[in-house]
């Protein structure tokens, strides 16, 4: 496969890509609920996929049928009936959406306002029928032009399958194999869209890549598939999600994200997840069962996962790094907030294979209300990982006394030269800290925000600048009413 890559210059890819733009052209209908091979075939046909991809999906589906849903996470929920879901639905026509912001739930608007989201974006996020919100604005045009100039490919994965099939085939499923786990297998069988990013050798992507810029990516549905490839010596920072709560009718979300970093490449992947968490009684809300994994294939490659998770009823996700290349580096910085009846079981896996590989894990869990959360992390040092090092720090902050925090650190060391450091703390927002702030003239609510944001600082510092500011606001808005 590698000769294909050499034949086709990245600039060529980019040229083709941007003529096509971001709009997908599938005419579509909606399938009745249920899942069988015909459904998989139908999805693949709808997308005019090459045969190898259909076979790949079918293999995943067959594997999935032999698997059972895992129950080891420290969460409880009503099981999903997989035969009651529709696996292919037409992208919603804008005509079905609200006609203007006047028709949108005032509560949602209030939140947008608090987060400081501009009006046009509010319309977009709330699904208001407006003409080509972003395509027409100059920022998107400039954005595309700049990427094209350096040969970066950034497009929906369905388009990548069409336009760069060799690249997709070479890398798809090589980080998260089709049969990796129950949800990854399901995703592989039925994914409908997602993002594709390719950074050619030696290129430093000139801007943060954000799905935000892609209108139709927001409705990729519940089985999103993302593939990012950073060639030798390249760099990319990718931002997923946004702080604004998004409308979504699907309860189950089972995304797969695969990252590949070749020699000296760096990928920084930042997520802000704020899906609907359910109501105050714990009804409704998104199940967020995600498989995210990075393959640090190349020597001296580096992948950083940074996540701020405040949404979803249930979050079950472990962004991981396979540190295959010598001297490769994996990082995981996480803030997870669970309030009301939210549950999160999240953490990371750092698999050290190469020599002198290093990993850093900083996890900050905040539980309020009846929220429940667990940090679950695995650090595995293989026989070959001479001189590997890991630093793990997981801190939990409890607000109130009906919430809970747990940590499940797993360590497997097969090489005696490894260095492991682990720190863990659990603290309550102290009455002392609150009183200290109040005695300086700061209200209780502001004091809690300050203390929580201070607690998260090490992680927020890892976010791209503008995202960090948003993340601060997000924590404040999320904590409203959680205290008192």
């Amino acid at each position, binding site marked *: 496969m590698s000769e294909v890559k050499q034949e086709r210059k990245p600039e060529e890819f980019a040229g083709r890509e941007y003529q096509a733009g971001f709009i997908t052209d599938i005419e579509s209908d909606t399938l009745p609920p249920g899942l069988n091979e015909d459904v998989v075939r139908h999805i693949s046909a709808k997308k005019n996929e090459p045969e190898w991809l259909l076979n790949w999906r079918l293999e995943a589906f067959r594997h999935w049928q032999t698997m059972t849903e895992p129950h080891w996470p420290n969460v409880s929920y009503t099981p999903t009936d997989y035969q009651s879901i529709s696996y292919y639905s037409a992208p919603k026509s804008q005509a079905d959406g609200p006609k203007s912001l006047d028709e949108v739930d005032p509560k949602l608007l209030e939140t947008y306002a608090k987060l400081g989201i501009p009006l046009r974006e509010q319309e977009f996020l709330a699904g208001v029928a407006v003409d080509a919100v972003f395509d027409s604005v100059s920022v998107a045009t400039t954005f595309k032009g700049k990427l094209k100039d350096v040969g970066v490919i950034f497009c929906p994965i369905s388009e990548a399958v069409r336009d760069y099939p060799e690249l997709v085939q070479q890398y798809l499923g090589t980080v998260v194999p089709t049969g990796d786990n129950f949800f990854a297998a399901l995703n592989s069988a039925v994914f409908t869209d997602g993002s594709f990013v390719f950074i050619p050798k030696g290129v430093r992507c000139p801007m943060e890549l954000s799905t935000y810029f892609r209108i139709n990516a927001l409705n990729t549905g519940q089985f999103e598939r993302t593939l990012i490839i950073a060639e030798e010596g390249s760099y990319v920072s990718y931002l997923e999600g946004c702080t604004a709560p998004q409308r979504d009718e699907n309860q189950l979300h089972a995304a797969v994200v695969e990252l590949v970093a070749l020699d000296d490449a760096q990928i920084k992947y930042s997520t802000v997840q704020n899906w609907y968490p359910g109501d105050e009684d714990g009804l409704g809300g998104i199940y967020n069962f995600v498989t995210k994994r990075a393959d640090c294939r190349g020597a001296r490659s580096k992948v950083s996962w940074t996540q701020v998770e405040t949404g979803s009823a249930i979050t079950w996700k472990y962004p991981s790094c396979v540190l295959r290349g010598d001297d490769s580096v994996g990082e995981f910085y996480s803030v997870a907030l669970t309030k009301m009846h939210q549950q999160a079981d999240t953490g990371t896996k750092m698999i050290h294979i190469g020599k002198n590989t290093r990993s850093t894990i900083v996890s900050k869990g905040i539980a309020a209300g009846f929220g429940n959360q667990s940090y679950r992390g695995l650090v595995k040092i293989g026989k070959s990982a001479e001189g590997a090092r890991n630093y793990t720090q997981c801190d939990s902050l409890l607000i109130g006394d009906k919430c809970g925090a747990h940590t499940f650190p797993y360590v497997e060391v097969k090489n005696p030269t490894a260095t492991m450091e682990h720190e863990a703390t659990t603290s309550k927002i*102290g*009455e*002392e*800290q609150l*009183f*200290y*702030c*109040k*005695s*300086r*003239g*700061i*209200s*209780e609510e*502001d004091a809690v925000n*300050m*203390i929580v*944001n*201070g*607690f*998260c*600082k*090490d992680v927020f510092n890892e976010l791209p600048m503008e995202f960090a500011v948003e993340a601060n606001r997000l924590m404040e808005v999320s904590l409203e009413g959680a205290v008192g």
Partner: protein
Amino acid sequence: MLKIENLHASVAGKEILKGINLTIGAGEIHAIMGPNGSGKSTLSNVIAGRDGYEVTQGTVTYKGHDLLAMEPEERAWEGVFLAFQYPVEIPGVNNTYLLKAGVNAARRHRGEQELDAMEFMQLVREKAKLVELDQSFLSRGVNEGFSGGEKKRNEIFQMAVLEPSLALLDETDSGLDIDALRIVAKGVNTLRAADRSIIMITHYQRLLDYIEPDVVHVLADGKILKTGDKSLALELEERGYDWVRAEEAAA
């Protein structure tokens, strides 16, 4: 400025303050001395409004208002300041950021324009000089990793920035080295003003050599047992507290 009458307060159901009477005029400095566990910090916590300190009897009047009816942050806006005996660490919360929030909340309360970042930094730099606090402390987390003495100095720095009308210094001198004590005392003396009253809680007469009090009280077993001038502190230094208790028992 402050008038405390027959104040009784309990913590965790146990009565600690058993009828405190204390009047402090504007511009006065009062020192409160007394044995460990006698209720000095309890008194300052009650004045600052800490949760869990239940006032069972008595009144506290501050500038003519019922202080006990106010929330702790309102007290701060009205000019009450407590320098803590054990300042707590708040990791990740920038020292300057916390102070700015406090200063601007008070300004909003008074209907004044908030200070912008530039104005505030100027104020903060100036005040940091007053207590010879290194600029690096300004951008660190609140008390995060500060040494005992640095924490105390930071409290006085905060006092200088917040410019309170009533400052309670709870053992600010404990843990300070000799030079730091001199610097902190100099800072407090600079803050001495006709419209600012200060209550200093201390175990050591030495502090009073640097900051001369108008009045010295002895607090023991939840009561003010004796009140005098500066010479009382010297006498306590020499004779301890037992004779005060004995005098009280005889009376």
